[in-house]
């Protein structure tokens, strides 16, 4: 019996996909892992691969068409296998997925070929896992959403868990009912051996979260603005450019480095809101908003605190270029612990950026403008830049964010701090 190929959710937020190009034609042999088609998601153009082997019997969606996630797009089966009419047609955009396929009366009960599984309604992202896999994942504290499934329709089965690690490496399988997370009285330091520490919510944090969400929406945001003197950064950048390098370090690269370095000192701002706990990251991954045609995307510079300016510069240019070509892989634009949005090059003095959940903060960077300020007892013209940090108040309190900005400002006004 033929197996349906469905439009898969190739990014965490994908609800529909446009079939850009078929890479396998009807009648082509197909092996597990072969690229069947290129699919444009909300973020990028991705490859859709085969989950079963056989022959591509039927393309039910033509190239160029957009269909919801979980909709059938093709059938894979045995050579010469008849394609039931119900499966061959009517699978266009928005067509409801068939819930089952009637068996001919003469077919023996299920010994041959997997039955057409019931389809999830388009747009749902329910994790499919066998009951055993769910039970074991719960016992071991594994996050099923992070485990690729090798069964039909991506079902997670026992063997997929054997390769998976606990969500917190080092934390041996806790007994059921035991505390699931190490309790961090103080957020752990970046650079620790574990990537993050989860902290349970105190009653006060719960109250702050509940009250502020009632007040201004699901992410209760407040804004902190400071003005930074950029003269010494400019001098440092001029010196670096004069020294010559294949990579031209930009102001933005220096800001990324400074933010990452400052976050190491303020892990309370390098965190995710997780509804029932806060995840304080020990690693610093900076999301960098990049404007692209019809939208924006936030590629991530991983471990930005541990990279040199030159590395950050090269990586930022590569990611931004590929972002504009919509050729980023999902892991390249997910997983940031803090983000930066810079509109300085578009002559914006200052603005507020919208937080990208579950991150707790984002920094909006304005342009550098020469203006008269007091310096050394005199009024002089100096390059000044305004930074506005949006903070999720459930995670970051006013003073917490302000102290982070103070450190950041100090680093930018004394760039040598970056190399300490």
């Amino acid at each position: 019996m033929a197996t349906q190929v469905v439009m898969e959710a190739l990014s965490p937020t994908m609800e529909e996909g446009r079939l850009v190009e078929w890479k396998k034609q009807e009648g082509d042999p197909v092996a597990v892992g072969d690229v069947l088609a290129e699919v444009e998601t909300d973020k990028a153009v991705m490859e859709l691969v085969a989950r079963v082997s056989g022959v591509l019997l039927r393309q039910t969606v033509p190239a160029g068409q957009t269909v919801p996630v979980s909709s059938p797009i093709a059938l894979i089966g045995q050579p010469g296998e008849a394609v039931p009419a119900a499966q061959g047609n009517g699978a266009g955009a928005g067509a409801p997925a068939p819930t089952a396929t009637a068996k001919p009366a003469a077919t023996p009960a299920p010994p041959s070929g997997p039955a057409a599984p019931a389809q999830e309604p388009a747009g749902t992202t329910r994790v499919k896992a066998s009951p055993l896999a769910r039970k074991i994942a719960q016992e071991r504290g594994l996050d099923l959403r992070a485990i690729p499934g090798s069964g039909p329709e991506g079902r997670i089965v026992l063997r997929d868990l054997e390769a998976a690690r606990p969500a917190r490496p080092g934390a041996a399988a806790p007994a059921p009912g035991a505390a699931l997370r190490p309790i961090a009285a103080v957020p752990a330091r970046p650079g620790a051996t574990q990537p993050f520490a989860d902290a349970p919510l105190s009653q006060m944090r719960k109250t702050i979260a509940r009250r502020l969400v009632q007040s201004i929406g699901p992410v209760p945001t407040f804004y902190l603005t400071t003005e930074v003197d950029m003269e010494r950064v400019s001098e440092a950048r001029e010196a670096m450019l004069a020294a010559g390098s294949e990579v031209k370090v930009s102001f933005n690269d220096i800001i990324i480095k400074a933010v990452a370095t400052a976050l190491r000192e303020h892990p309370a701002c390098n965190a995710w809101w997780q509804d029932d706990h806060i995840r304080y990251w020990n690693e610093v991954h900076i999301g960098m908003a990049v404007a692209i045609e019809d939208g924006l995307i936030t590629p991530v510079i991983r471990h930005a605190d541990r990279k040199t300016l030159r590395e950050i510069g090269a990586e930022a240019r590569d990611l931004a270029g590929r972002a504009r070509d919509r050729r980023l892989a999902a892991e390249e634009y997910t997983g940031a612990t803090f983000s930066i949005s810079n509109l300085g090059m578009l002559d914006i003095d200052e603005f507020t950026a919208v937080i990208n959940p579950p991150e707790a903060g984002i920094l909006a960077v304005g342009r550098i403008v020469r203006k008269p300020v007091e310096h050394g007892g005199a009024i002089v013209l100096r390059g000044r830049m305004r930074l506005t940090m949006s903070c999720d108040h459930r995670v970051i309190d006013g003073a917490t964010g302000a102290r982070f900005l103070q450190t950041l400002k100090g680093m930018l006004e004394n760039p040598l701090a970056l190399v300490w």
Partner: protein
Amino acid sequence: MPVLTYRDALNSALREEMRRDDTVFLMGEEVGVYQGAYKVSRGLLDEFGPMRVVDTPITELGFAGLGVGAAMTGLRPVIEFMTWNFALLAIDQLVNSAAKMRYMSGGQIGVPAVFRGPGGAALQLGAQHSQAFESYYAHIPGLKVVMPATPADAKGLLKSAIRDDDPVVFIEGEMLYNQKGEVPDGEHVVPLGLADVKRPGTDVTIVCHSKTVSAALKAAEQLAAEGVDAEVVDLRTIRPLDAATVLASVAKTHRCVVAEEGWPFAGVGAQVVDVVQRNAFDELDAPVLRVTGADVPMPYNRHLEKAAKVDAGKLVDAVGQVLYR
């Protein structure tokens, strides 16, 4: 331990029980002078005489009713149907008399009768003579249904069935009568309601009964060559169903395939799947699959008949699916 055929194992059970208890008697078509259509009653007329080994006309409803009446008066009849295909004519006596009597008499009158004979398909006997009816009888509260797969189980289970105080439907296999196996001498009794692990394994459970046991064991051998260690659970008694043995096996292997000779709809396997999914849901790594006879009247054509039957190859395929191979 002596090696007996399945038919001789049944014969020795009958002989031993008739010697042990003079209320036990055998009745059916050709059981006496002809010594049984399948020679299960060979020698019994000579030993026990025509009062206890009774030939009947071709009147299934009639002699089944005589059996129920005899049981109500305190005898222990063993009623032989030449095959269970012919017993359709007698099903009213089994369902409406034998199964109901203890309940409707407020526990005063039991029916300690055994109804036995071969069920299922043999070879090219056509649609009307190639049917597996265990799910019909297992459906009825008040009936026990027993289906031995080996000579030893045939003997031990028939002795238990004869001693049981309630009506027992005892379905043999025409294709099993010549099968040989070791059978313990003398008092070998297998309790009703106990399944048997015919082959231990760790990777997948194959639940089966009667003729599908040999298919399952053959499939297990093929799977072993591929590195898959299958456990074969022979239900032996369909009702009462030994859920504990099945569930213990599934808890170990996490995967289950259920085989039966009969049709898929409302079959014995459907009941097994219900028990497994309800009681071992969190142990399952894959849906429970069934391998059944084809959902058609049994074809007479030899090739079509073969295609319609359960065999080891179909079981190997199903095991491959539950292992996601």
